């Protein structure tokens, strides 16, 4: 799971709850992580958010495993009360034609709301929607690499018509997030579960690694090998038998041929 969060104060409750450690070294963005989570503090605004999301994507190996991406932060809102958590079901920006509709597959009680990403802090709460400064560019970047069901934006209302931005006390930012932490962590778990449904399991990945190391496969041969390994999995052919057949050969080409030959008799639906 990857978190992209604008402010350190917004991130702190999650860093504490998930026991994330700061990554040392010269990094473009403050980064915290444990074995399963990575949190990047982006700074305020669209450019910072897009940059941090790209940075996080680069570190997350999203190709192998579809890690969810979650943007969390505070936002203004035209109708919801201060402290209310909402999930963005429509994300748009005043300067972009693209509109995002994050597919909502997680069964949750979190309120749904449209969200407009603004260039400057919003002080006009006319419409029933949220106002932030990062979500649109976050979504633009993350959805290029991660399936959209796993890219979500949740916000906590910090200001509205009755308690406008000018009266907002920045010291309560962490408190706003902390109060909603149980719900946020529930969503995190649900998104991780969803991601696992479309991820290859650890055993499959380990088996694939072993198979790939059995010979010097070219890129094209690797593609073919992965396809054959999937076929072998579909027919539950013993892994040891597969690896042995690959290792017995003295070239990548003949190993692929041997594997195809091994699978051939199984190739019929039971």
């Amino acid at each position: 799971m990857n978190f992209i969060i604008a402010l350190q104060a917004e991130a702190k409750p999650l860093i504490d709850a998930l026991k994330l450690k700061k990554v040392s070294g010269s990094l473009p963005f403050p980064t915290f992580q444990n074995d399963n989570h990575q949190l990047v503090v982006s700074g305020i605004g669209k450019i910072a958010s897009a940059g941090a999301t790209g940075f996080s994507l680069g570190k997350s190996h999203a190709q192998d495993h579809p890690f969810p991406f979650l943007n969390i932060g505070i936002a203004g809102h035209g109708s919801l009360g201060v402290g209310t958590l909402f999930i963005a079901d429509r994300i748009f920006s005043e300067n972009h034609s693209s509109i995002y509709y994050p597919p909502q597959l997680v069964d949750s009680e979190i309120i749904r709301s449209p969200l407009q990403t603004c260039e400057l802090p919003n002080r006009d709460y006319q419409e029933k929607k949220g106002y932030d400064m990062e979500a649109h560019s976050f979504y633009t970047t993350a959805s290029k690499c991660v399936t959209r069901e796993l890219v979500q934006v949740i916000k906590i209302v910090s200001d509205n018509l009755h308690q406008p931005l000018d009266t907002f006390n920045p010291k309560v930012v962490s408190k706003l997030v902390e109060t909603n932490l149980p719900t946020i962590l529930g969503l995190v778990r649900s998104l991780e579960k969803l991601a696992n449904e479309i991820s290859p399991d650890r055993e499959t990945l380990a088996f694939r690694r072993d198979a790939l190391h059995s010979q010097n496969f070219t890129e094209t041969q690797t593609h073919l090998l992965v396809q054959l390994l999937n076929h072998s999995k579909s027919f539950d052919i013993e892994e040891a038998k597969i690896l042995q057949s690959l290792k017995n050969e003295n070239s990548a080409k003949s190993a692929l041929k041997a594997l195809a030959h091994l699978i051939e008799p199984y190739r019929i639906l039971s």
Partner: protein
Amino acid sequence: MIEYIYFEVGIEDHPRTQEFFRRFPKATKIPCNHYKEVFNPRGQSFRLQKKNPALILAKQNGKKIHPIPASYGVGGSQNFYFSHLLNCLYDCRYCFLQGMFPSAHYVLFVNFEDFQSEIKKKHDDLGDSPSWFFSGYDCDSLALESLTGFAQDFIPFFRKLPNSWLEIRTKSIASQVLEKTDPLDNAVVAFSFTPEEISQQLEHKVPSVQSRIKAMKKLANLGWKIGLRIDPIIDCVDFNTRYAKLFEQLITALPAESLHSVSLGAFRMPTGFFRSIQKLYPKEQLFSGKLEKKNGNIAYRAEIEKERISTCQSLLLSHIPKEKLYLCDPVEIK
């Protein structure tokens, strides 16, 4: 249960849209400018969305009636298909929709009246020449009837066009809408089948073969013409025994006069769609079978395909006259 309804702002006031809003008051309603904003973007997971698809209400502004491939008819000389709905309640692993559409959300075009105008115009243009309209290409015609009201709306419409035939293709047993009305002389209710063992493996969420036979028999006894669609034919162990049993079950369930046609089609899929679906379900046995690429499609190796079709033809011709048997040849993809 529909939890999310996306709707094009342009059809918010359409009576059918308003009816959905009334029927699903708790659904989250999300406006969009055009359904493609929600449905078309790349980077969506058909597999994940299939767990809980949303409903998208839209207006079909483009062409509504399309010609079907030349070999896909069942006796008519003018053949068209139309899609009031994109996507299906069921989750058949061999279905090309999973590879064709980027999203598993249901898109319902609410402007039935525009579809009907175009069908009527085609009917008038073709004069005395009988024409066929196939409704189940991009969806199951009946499975979501309680949601869409498609058959309830189109059957009375086709009743006024005796020279135009409607094929209602389905795997559904939700046939109450047909049971409640007089059979339509110019309609065929076409049920798709694979043998029970295959159905259980590949046709997820689909009613059992037995319950479909029961529904089909009921409609036949009420006077509806029935079509049998053995498409796709799936290579499997005990192929001959399984298909022979299926055909025996189907034919004995139907009064001979109610059987309109039987069509056969081997498993085939455009290569691009196949690759997409294979990524969704990399460990699916169906996609690891004895397949090959030919004419832009992925299909069974030629000798297997020929043998399986030939077996099905022989088995069927022992039950039905050859005039009722049709073969759907794969379409070359250029």
